[in-house]
């Protein structure tokens, strides 16, 4: 049987899409999500103070993303709506990171296989628990795969080198200031061209999910507070 003209095998289609998405994601700057003594720390290299890569989804749930802004912003807004709807119709405690991660996986998986172009995004859904054992990190990739990560997640450009750097020093008992320094050092030592750079407070976006806070655990740090923490 002869193949129709222009036939491309499904394997090839999926591979091409995956390559396309991976390239898009690797172009962006990295975002790092890690556990620390009081919860979860998000650090992104992001010179914009208005266009966020890190944000609050719900009381105990945060969101971090790399890739195309309009695409992950779309996912973020859907996540906020989903969480608020569930919390409103059931109870605030019924909104979980796992539920969000599952839905994101469905959405990304559907887009990857049915749309003409996959989303060039990678996202992490983080949930802070009552104690360190309850902390959860879900990494979701462009094709809808979910991974339940332990300790930390690095996404975006040069993620592997940054992960390797972070792996040495990371522990879930690290204090906020030390954890932040560790994260900044990991981000800056693994620059795209292999040279170390200095990252200042103004080029960083930092937030935490702090289990010691009242209801809403998410907290974004202003540049002034960051300078103090990094000093």
């Amino acid at each position, binding site marked *: 049987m002869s193949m129709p003209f222009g036939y491309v095998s499904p394997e090839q289609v999926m591979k091409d899409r995956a390559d396309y998405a991976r390239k898009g994601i690797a172009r962006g700057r990295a975002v790092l999500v890690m556990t620390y003594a009081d919860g979860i720390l998000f650090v992104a290299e992001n010179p914009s103070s*208005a266009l*966020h890569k890190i*944000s*609050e*989804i719900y009381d105990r749930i945060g969101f971090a993303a790399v890739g195309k802004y309009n695409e992950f912003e*779309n996912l973020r*807004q*859907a996540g*906020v*709506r*989903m969480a*608020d*709807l569930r*919390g*409103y*119709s059931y109870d605030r405690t019924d909104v979980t990171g796992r539920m969000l991660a599952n*839905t994101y996986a*469905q*959405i990304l998986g*559907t*887009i990857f296989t049915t*749309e003409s172009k996959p989303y060039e995004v990678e996202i992490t859904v983080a949930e802070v628990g009552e104690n360190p054992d309850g902390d959860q990190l879900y990494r979701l990739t462009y094709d809808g795969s979910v991974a339940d990560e332990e300790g930390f997640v690095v996404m975006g450009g040069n993620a592997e080198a940054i992960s390797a750097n972070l792996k040495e020093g990371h522990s879930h008992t690290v204090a906020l200031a030390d954890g932040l320094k560790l994260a900044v050092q990991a981000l800056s030592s693994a620059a795209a061209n292999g040279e170390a750079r200095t990252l200042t407070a103004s080029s960083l976006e930092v937030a935490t999910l702090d289990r010691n806070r009242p209801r*809403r655990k998410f907290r974004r740090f202003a540049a002034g507070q960051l300078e103090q923490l990094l000093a």
Partner: protein
Amino acid sequence: MDFSRDGGSLPGAFFAPGSSSFADFLAATRPDLLPGRRLDMPPGMTPTIDAPHGTTIVAVAHTTGVVMAGDRRATMGNVIAQRDMEKVFQADEYSCVGIAGSAGIAIELVRLFQVELEHYEKIEGTTLSLEGKANRLSLLIRNNLAMAMQGLAVVPLFAGYDLENDDPAKAGRIFSYDVTGGRYEEHSFHSVGSGSVFARGALKKLYRDEFTEDDAVLASIQALYDAADDDSATGGPDLTRRIYPVVTSVTVDGFRRWPDNEVERRVQQVVEERMTSPGGPNAPMRGVNQ
């Protein structure tokens, strides 16, 4: 893109750009969850629902913000439905809302309002202005008009600290509403609910421009006492069960609910003074504040 086809995912409204209102989102996706639409009745039918009613809320502006307090009683006809009901709620970090009227719907409305403000904050990455919040509440009340006409009216009182105003003495602002969603800014103090006439009368005589937060709390407790004195639906301080008014305050430092022991001390002081003067503090017959 339409996600509704594949079952496991979300309808398109979840991805609709541009809307930062949770109430609008609810109207588009789950209208059955909106407070006003829960009990749709056939036109022309007048309900004979005996549902609990909340009673008196007072708000008093002062030199560093605003105080809101409410009694704890809910009534159903001549029956006391609840003795320890909470009718003053935190709306967000810099505002609070108190409710009078049909309790079930009012609480639902407050819940929606709270999510509405938080939703906006999360989607937009910034908070609404105090005026913006007051207007949103107005819209939610208007959506409840059909039920109000069936006798299930909700009349909230909204107060907050206006971060855009540099003068703290003017930053505590109070907004009242009518059942059609009409929004009115009140000055200095206001009260809603069945005992509000008496509470407002008391506040008129007690209020001073130079009130501190502490003074405003004391005046609110006095006003609620006077409301309970003359209105059967308003609950006075319940000393035997240790149930006292809910007192909240909003200042530049944000929302704070006064702990029960701090309220208790002031309530006991007021009750003590009323032992000798049941009508409360005397206002001067003539002249300005003395």
